[in-house]
């Protein structure tokens, strides 16, 4: 029987997002759904059905890897390109994009890094990701109507005790025990960061270069 549109899309999504490649996933999914891939996707002498799907699979991963690279440049510099690529693959497996905007693809990365093995080598990594994520959110935060100096002056002194300061939607306060500004500064000056020798070190500090 011909598969429904829903079945076709479910199978393709599974194959394209497959972390271990289309072929490996196909042998699992094909048996599960009872549809032969070759009966669904046309292969020819130039490219087989699996090769055709692999074009999409690569493009899928590379596009989202680029998003994560753009959103977390400091994290990438700390761990290096290869580890970042692995990190992205693991992350996307657990947190596939569920949003229409690519700005949201990496929003769970700070939490994901908190318990990740890379954080054993660089314990500040989760906080660094939180900082980079905050910069994205701030960039796109709603524009507030700011109070002007004249409006402030117009408030009679006896009402001052009733005034409450409110932070703008584009202000975020991050609490970290790590000197993240030093990290960013070192990275911006093109230096690398060696992992701290003792991961469980009680005195948070950066390893000497």
């Amino acid at each position, binding site marked *: 029987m*011909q*598969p*429904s*549109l*829903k079945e*076709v*899309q*479910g199978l*393709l*999504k599974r194959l*394209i*997002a497959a972390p271990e490649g289309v072929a490996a996933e196909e042998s699992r999914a094909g048996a599960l759904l009872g549809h032969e891939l*070759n*009966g*669904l*996707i*046309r292969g*020819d002498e*130039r*490219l087989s*059905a699996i090769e*055709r*799907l692999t*074009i*999409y699979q690569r*493009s*899928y991963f590379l*596009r*989202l890897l680029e998003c994560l690279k753009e959103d977390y440049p400091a994290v990438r510099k700390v761990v290096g390109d290869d580890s970042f690529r692995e990190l992205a693959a693991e992350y996307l497996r657990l947190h*596939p*994009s*569920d*949003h*229409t*905007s*690519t*700005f949201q*693809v990496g929003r769970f990365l700070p939490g994901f890094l908190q318990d990740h093995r890379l954080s054993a080598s660089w314990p500040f990594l989760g906080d660094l990701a939180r900082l980079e994520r905050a910069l994205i959110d701030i*960039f*796109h*935060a*709603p*524009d507030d109507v700011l109070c002007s100096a004249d409006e402030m002056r117009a408030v009679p002194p006896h009402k001052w005790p009733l005034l409450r300061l409110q932070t703008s*939607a*584009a202000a975020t306060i991050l609490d970290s025990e790590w000197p993240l500004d030093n990290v960013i500064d070192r990275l911006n000056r093109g230096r690398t960061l060696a992992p701290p020798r003792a991961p469980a070190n009680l005195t948070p500090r950066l390893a000497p270069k």
Partner: protein
Amino acid sequence: MADWFEVISENFMVGGGRPLEVLESIREHYPIVLHGVSMSLGSTDALNREYLRDLVRLARRFNPAWISDHLCWTGVGGHNLHELLPLPYTDEALRHVIKRIREVQDILGRPILIENVSSYLEYSISTFREWEFLASVAKEANCGILLDINNIYVNAFNHGFDAVRYIDAVPCDRVIQFHLAGHSDHGKYLLDTHDHPIKEQVWQLDDHAVRRFGLTATLIEWDDNIPDLGALTQVADQACDRARAALMRHRSGDAAQPEGSARPAQTADSCA
């Protein structure tokens, strides 16, 4: 010189900030069109109401000349692959996507344009050719077409069909805009990368499209390795000049034939 601008809708569906401000200042001087990549018109998931609500809001603020998205699906089961995936060209998919476009148009309160996507696979279960599917959708959903000339060229190579035959089957009264772009040659297939100059064969296909559809608003897509603005606007000017020249030649009965075309262009039922 640029006459108008196209922006990716999703990049501006945010709370606030500088990009929206920049778009405001562009809008003061130029018409803009909103081009989406996440409407997922062909998906079997429910339409994303939140997305459409944000799009309505964006359209209200910027009053675009038109709104477009792709004839494709981008994800299913709540998972967005951010890829423009082709639909199987079946009766089921046809009915499904027509119904969805109508719903979207009701929500937006205006017709949309749908764009033909580049693709690297075809489904064995398809019962229509891509151009038949596109034409039927546009007619039945009563929407416009954003015809991507480069995508037709890429698909013609990838799936082995005649690009001119495709163009000649697209209904004239539906085409509102063209896309032109550069692609990469991977030997066994062409990849729609938007990071190269437009290939000569694609320009020739564009000449043919102009002869059929007349002078049409044309956008040069360039997403990576972007040349400086001067070089980019030169390409846009080139598109205008070429289109005018192709039309002049056509009207004086001297239509050049695109390379690799099986049909002489003069016999196409042109509506230019």
